[in-house]
């Protein structure tokens, strides 16, 4: 089964790499450039997993996280937070608001792929 992944980040320079990476790994990839776009995309076609940046315009990743967890149709979406905020208090907040995993920038793409696969494998 092909997993659908949504990548939400306002930085085009990371988006281009992540998109290439995930497609190459065989996922179906959708992109969003801010928080609101991410929610709209999810409601249109719920993905299996979201790579969610925290600092985004219009809606932050944390707000998106809360909305997803509050929405009945999106209960099963896995959320992996990607963020430059590296303090343990930020990690705790992200996980508390409903993220399944938290990855601090910068990260190795190999590790990221492994992490994503592990999460999807667990869900399948």
């Amino acid at each position: 089964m092909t997993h659908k992944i949504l990548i939400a980040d306002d930085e085009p320079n990371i988006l281009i790499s992540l998109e290439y990476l995930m497609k190459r790994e065989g996922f179906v990839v959708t992109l969003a450039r801010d928080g609101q776009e991410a929610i709209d995309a999810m409601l249109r076609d719920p993905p299996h997993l979201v790579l969610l940046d925290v600092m985004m315009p219009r809606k932050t990743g944390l707000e998106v996280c809360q909305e997803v967890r509050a929405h009945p149709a999106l209960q099963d979406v896995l959320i992996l937070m990607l963020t430059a905020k590296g303090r343990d208090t930020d990690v705790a907040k992200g996980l508390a608001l409903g993220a399944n995993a938290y990855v601090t920038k910068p990260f190795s793409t190999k590790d990221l792929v492994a992490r994503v696969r592990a999460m999807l494998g667990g869900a399948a």
Partner: protein
Amino acid sequence: MKLAQRALLAALAPGLALGLWIALTTAMVWATLSTQERTLLGDVLEPRIALTLMAWLVCSVLLALLARRLFGDHVEALARLDEETRVQLAGRTDRALPDAGSAQVRGLAATIQALVAQRSALQDDMQRQVQAASQQVDHERRRLAALMAELTQSVVVCNLDGRVLLYNNRARLQFRALSDVPGLAEGASTIGLGRSIYTVFERQLVDHALDTIRQRMARGSTNPSAQFVTTTRNGQLLRVQMAAVLDTPGPVLGGFVLMLDNVTREFEQESLRDQLLHGMTEGSRGSLANLQAAVDMLGYPDLDAAMRERFLSVVREEAAAMGDRIQSLAVSAASGLKTRWPMEDMRGSDLVAAIARRIEALGTLEVRSDAVDGALWLKVDSFSLMQALAYLAARLADEFGIRRAELRLSLADTRAHLDLVWSGQVVSTETVMNWEMDPMRIGTESTPLSVRDVVDRHGGAFWFERERVRHEAFFRFLLPLAMAQEVIDAPVAADATERPEYYDFDLFRMSDQARDLADRRLTELSYTVFDTETTGLDPSGGDEIIQIGATRIVNGRLLRHEGFEQLVDPQRPISAASIPIHGIQPSMVAGQPTIDRVLPAFHAFAQDTVLVAHNAAFDMRFLQLKEARTGVCFDQPVLDTLLLSAVVHPHQESHGLEAIAQRLGIAVEGRHTALGDATVTAQVFLKLVPLLADKGIHTLGQARAAAKDTYYARVQY
């Protein structure tokens, strides 16, 4: 009955008693006789009646003498002894008790005399002890006040009502700098003895800190303290530490000590540092993530040319962004870093003088310091800097035989140049480099620090230059300047001749009684004694105030260091006739603040006090006419020294300020400036208070009532 009458009575009494006895006996015997016997006895006695009377008279006289003697020895002597003893009881005299009367009376007198002597000795002893104790207390107070004055931290001591009992010079300067109108009368109004600290800090803030202290005391803390940070009205950030003043026994809270630090700049620098750190981590994380992901993608061998170019451009872009970020961080971090080492603000000329003294003390060089910019304030670690220059001078002397040098200080953009200049011998740049890096050694003293370390500590720079034209060479230190605000904070030398009156511990015992002001004693009130100079004598006709001077009396003391003096632009001409009186020329008031700004400042200065002025009705009229315009109302009670003088000396002709001052033995100096006159008025008032008390006038209400009844009170302006 008087003693003399009683003595006469005592002398006559035995004779009378004897006569009475004879008469009674004769009468009774006579009654028992028969007619015959009566005739017989009559015949016998009749010719001898004179003899009987004579015998009675002689006996009476003898008895009178005896009685007189006994009365004198026992009654009179005792009465006199009693009187003299009463005199001794009332107060000490040097008179001895009378040594008269019977042996017993004399014995009693001697015993009383001994008791009196014993009492005197005890009194003397007690007085000596009291004197010694109060001297000791006074000594300790002075020592404490001196200590406080030297502290570089601001200290304010208050009683539980928040009244200031003590503050040091540093606190005065700090509050002056924090004042809303620092330019006015030198910001005199914010702090003073007996003033409320709540004019500076919010009451809740202080109460909360006091509660914290009480809680800690309840938990058994022996040195309870609390801390709060607050912003002042002009946006400065103060860190305040509060410590308890404990009264024994108990201990119970008797007051509190506040130690203040202006942490505005520290805070700004700290938040700047936070910002830098934040920018460094979170900003870089994002860029690094972009970079790493792009590089990872570039590692895939099957990447097509177009994608490869896109990833490469991401790498280029992000690398350039990181470079920019680090550059800007480096610039701002440099200014933040120099604050790490605790620096002090120092007048440049003081620093140069200290360095010159240090070099000359080493005996190696002769130092001149003529070219020093006296206006410069530096932010330096003066000790290490002094060491560095002394070390360089010593090496110049030892290794190059230099005997004369000069210290120069000048402004260079936003920093200062401190130069050690000499002429003659040329020193190579390599040598200088070595000197800069070597640990400093001066004579027998050595330190692990190098000149470079000292320079780094200042965030400065150090180099060696030659000026061929003048055959001069110099070492130059580039040093940071102290900011303008810090210069305001720096202590200015207080009047060296007298210890400023910054403390009054007797205020500890005073508390804000709920009693009506009118019932308060004159001796315990706080006063603002003021005087105005005006363009003329007709307030309703448009004359205006051109100067206000005021001084304070708290707890019976004139506080010379808490004066208020401000010239005022009257916005109208000053009448030529008045200029010789007050000596204020029109040019002096030009550019001064107008009454609209000065009156609120004076109102704040006079807060919570009773106003005193000489011929107060005149000055008050000027203040009242401005109420509508300035919005400040002087509604506190007013006392007039002119009227009070008339109460005390109703029969004197003149109650002019100078005449009263002369009458009360006050040396008049600096009259006819507003502050000078206010000071004289204050001295007059202080002398009048005990004279009023002699007339039974003790309270404010009594003083005002008495003043109102004098003739002078009927004059109207």
